[in-house]
């Protein structure tokens, strides 16, 4: 998708503005986003852009929070006390547990930032090896499934879908076992 302002560069940033209570969504390239930042006086620095992505994926529209601050509920990580507002303003997390606490806000943002949703690659030696290997396999199968669907090869897609579901169930089971083992 091309930038909505210059119509030249690839749009890499998705911005949502609220003007007069109306939401306006825009897809911009980095230089036009920076120019708009200067115009509006809003700080869209590199980390704040991440913050914007989370806001977009959140369930509560920003204006609702502004109008009814007394009803505003905020997620807080019990482990490091990192707050949702800190995630929104800095685009950063406070500890490993924050990934679980803020997962509802992070999922869509992660999809926009990365090519995949599951880790494929190195694992710390000797830790979580089996589960990690399954996740790698799952990511590979999901990629093949998307490819099969794109090629309209529905017979293969059906087989792959079953394999994906089966592996997902096994991963969840092992993950639960590991968690209860840790506790």
């Amino acid at each position, binding site marked *: 998708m091309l930038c909505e302002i210059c119509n030249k560069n690839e749009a890499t940033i998705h911005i949502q503005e609220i003007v007069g209570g109306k939401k306006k969504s825009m897809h911009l390239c980095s230089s036009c986003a920076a120019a708009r930042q200067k115009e509006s006086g809003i700080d869209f620095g590199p980390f704040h852009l991440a913050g914007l992505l989370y806001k977009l994926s959140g369930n509560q529209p920003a204006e609702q929070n502004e109008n009814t601050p007394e009803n505003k509920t905020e997620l807080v990580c019990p482990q490091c006390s990192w707050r949702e507002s800190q995630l929104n303003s800095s685009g950063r997390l406070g500890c490993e547990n924050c*990934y679980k606490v803020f997962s509802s806000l992070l999922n869509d943002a992660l999809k926009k930032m990365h090519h995949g949703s599951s880790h494929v690659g190195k694992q710390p030696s000797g830790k979580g090896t089996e589960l990690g290997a399954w996740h790698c396999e799952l990511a590979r199968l999901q990629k093949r499934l998307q490819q099969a669907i794109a090629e309209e090869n529905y017979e293969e897609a059906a087989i792959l879908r079953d394999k994906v579901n089966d592996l997902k169930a096994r*991963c969840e089971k092992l993950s639960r076992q590991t968690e209860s083992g840790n506790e």
Partner: protein
Amino acid sequence: MSEFEMENTDCLLSSPVNFLDDQNSTSPIVISSRVRLARNIKGMPFPPAGDICSASEVAAMVKEAVDLCKVLGDEYWSFTPSSLSMADRLVLLERRLASSELLQSVEAHLHVSRDSHKAIMVNEEDHLRLQVVMPGLQLKKCWEDINVIDDALSSKLDMAYDGTLGYLTACPSNVGTALRVSAMLHLPAMNMEKSIVQLERALAKLGLTVRGISGEGSESLGNLYQISNQSTLGEGETEIISQLGRVIDQVIEHEESLRAKLMEHRRNNLLDVVGRSYGLLRYSYLLTSREAYNALSMVRLGVDLGLFNSLDIQIVNELFVAVGTGHLQKLAMRELSEREQNAFRAQIVRERLKKNSPL
């Protein structure tokens, strides 16, 4: 005792900038390759949420692991940016050993191998930022080296990791492999032909970014551009590295073909801009950093194209670093105003080129 806590960066200044020291480079277009891994220690708050106590605990754990594993060799240098002078901090930045974020952190530390190829930043955005920098296009070699460091440190430190999301980092844009691979390229012909915007657009589709070094946005000083991966989740390390390698090969090919076209069709224009740039460097008495970098870039292009009889590329490389504000002030042994910097910059460039006059 294998670590030396340094009060300044004099130890670095006495040795050449290793990432620029590539005598056997296959392509003069790729200046250097860099691989960075982000890691956090399990159970500790990430630096954005940590306090001085947790940060110093992390620093002590990392130092112990680095000493035990000898990942930076038998002897290495340690710097505490908060206790360094501004000029020393700038030297670390200009030598690409530290990020500007590290230099602003109060509890940050930097451990550097004696050959300056390997560095470990502590308490930057993440607890650990491992870095390997090599001259020329050596992404695979960088990865092999950093992988060894990572394995060794992981045997002593329990890293924050999740089966689905991979290595957990303070910023979700690094989660997964937490790997940032980049190459610094010298692209004067592509810039002259206004191809950088097209490159930016093409790379964005592949999830890669190109940005100017020290410039704003896509603008660059000295036609130096850094190409790096953006996505860290969903692809393995070797996949990320080989994709970036393939893209860089194509960029090199494009830059080379544009250089050849310029030589064939606009030879006089090219000779003129290279000659004027050499003249500026050789005879100026006031030289801003922008002028210096841009003129050095054109002279480097001239050397690459064989337009100089005897000017050594190594001298041009050295000057690229020597004209930096931090290096200038270290050489002058005092703080310099902007005007003084411009005069001193012009002086050292004049003298260096006078000694090695290609004419």
